[in-house]
């Protein structure tokens, strides 16, 4: 009997070990704007992101890069970095998760990507084409880092644009921590329940588009 309790305790210890590290906190902040791209027939073909990094990370990212003018970087000078960025983002599924009428959709590798450097911050532009363009009633697009190393915030002004969407499509944005999203109930109960495997989800930006 004692052994069973012992095993239970060990299991608990193991679980708490596994759970602890999920309490990550961000080191990188991204202010994002996203565009949903529609084809003429109203199917969604992809997403175009513009992610602006915080100035600390921007300084880190341009460290050691050659530039003609000190403290300024042209799009060409930043090309190798943009390349590295999009290649690395693959591992994290571009922090972009789409569901068309509840079904997960996948993205192809990014196209049309580049970086620009303005006012000491970097902005990464890239387009994620959907593997299979879809025409759902509802599209849900979430942008977040599961491990919460990166804190994504949608821009204050015009965070989401629907480009070429059929008339009558309605967009709704749920930001993390603004009290509107039910998914973002962040309290210690969540952690005690051990449901923190998707810790970063609580900081997700949820874009919902309903089309007639």
């Amino acid at each position, binding site marked *: *009997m*004692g*052994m069973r*309790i*012992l095993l239970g*305790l*060990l299991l*608990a*210890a*193991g679980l*708490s*070990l*596994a*759970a*602890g*590290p*999920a*309490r*990550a*906190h*961000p*080191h*990188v*902040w991204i202010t994002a704007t996203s565009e949903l791209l529609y084809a003429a027939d109203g199917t969604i073909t992809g997403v175009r992101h513009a992610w602006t990094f*915080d*100035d*600390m*990370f921007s*300084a*880190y*990212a*341009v*460290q*050691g*890069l050659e530039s003609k003018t000190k403290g300024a970087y042209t799009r060409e000078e930043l090309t190798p*970095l943009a390349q*590295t*960025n999009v290649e*690395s*983002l693959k591992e994290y599924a571009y922090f972009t998760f789409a569901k068309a009428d509840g079904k997960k959709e996948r993205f192809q590798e990014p196209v049309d990507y580049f970086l620009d450097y303005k006012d000491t911050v970097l902005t990464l532009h890239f387009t994620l084409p959907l593997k299979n363009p879809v025409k759902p009633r509802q599209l849900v697009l979430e942008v977040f880092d599961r*491990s*919460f*190393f990166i*804190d994504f915030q949608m821009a204050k002004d015009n965070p989401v644009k629907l480009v070429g969407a059929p008339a009558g499509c309605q967009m709704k944005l749920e930001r*993390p*921590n*603004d*009290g509107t*999203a*039910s998914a*973002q*109930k*962040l*309290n*210690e*109960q*969540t*952690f005690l329940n051990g449901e923190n495997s998707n810790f970063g989800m*609580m900081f997700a930006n949820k874009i919902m588009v309903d089309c007639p």
Partner: protein
Amino acid sequence: MKSQLSGFALGLLTCAAVLLVVSVADAALHDLLAQNPFGAPRAQQAAEPEASGLIGWLLAKQSEFYRQMSATIRAAKSDGSAVWTLLFISFAYGIFHAAGPGHGKAVIASYLVANRETARRGIALSFASALMQSLVAILIVGISAWILNATAKTMCKAEGAIEIASYALIALFGLRLVWVKGGAFIRALQVAQPVPAMAGVPHDHDHGHDADDHHGHDHDHHHGHSHARHEHGHGHVHDEHCGHSHGPAPSELAGPGGWRRGFAAILAVGIRPCSGAILVLVFALAQGLFWAGIAATLLMGLGTAITVASIAVVAVSAKDIAQRLSARRDGGGALVMRGIEFGAAGLVLLFGVGLLFGYIAAERTTCF
């Protein structure tokens, strides 16, 4: 025989309980630290949808301090007094930051329990490893970014390599502890079974030679004499460090045996710099204020050390309580303590292996 068996079971249970305490201590402590200053009742907090929970508050604080850093470094360019703000922010960030993963709190705590270290040595180890962590960050950025003007990509690769080395070190370190402590545990088991509690002879004969620690070779002569360890019979704790018994004098901490003993732990934990420090340093360098970045990094380390040291003290106290409790048990005492040490050693190994193979997601290195 029956009572002995139940004693054994109790021993194992105590052992598991202490393991649990050690492993959750850090999490709990940070929750405490993060206690809502307004003492709002839990139910109310749970009802609020915003990030008002303890963890949310903790995260918000960390982010707040961290984000203020870049602005403060910028300000320090023209206004010298901003440096003081920077130092304060860095210190506060360090305290909160130790809540993050990958900072070896658990490794240090487990090591302390496994090696029967004192709280004072625990504090010293925490500070030493945090200092090393800061120095590694400063060296990485100083050499690669400042001297070699390497790119972020190169720096990141270096960081990644160091990270793997660090995890491997922790695993190796744990393996060695498991080997040594496992032997001691098995010997204690062998002794505990046939000899029915020589409780009449309160004699702590556990010569704790700890030969590996003092002289650098790898066997732990616990001799398994284990004549019912009984701390109360002695004015001084005989099993701490063979011979020098009256708790560690400061000279002992810094002495050849003292530091060498903990050096493996310091190295394993401290060799991995934290991403936050690297970012701050590179940013400061870009602003032409590398020295401010160095100062901030050192203060961050100090803050981290304070948090880790508190956890170390909790771990050591928990073990001491267990020791006192188990000492009352006839015969079981030595076994319980060897069991706890063995378990703690196992935890270090688990951590190392877990980090190495990515089962435990540590703070990610910024590579993109």
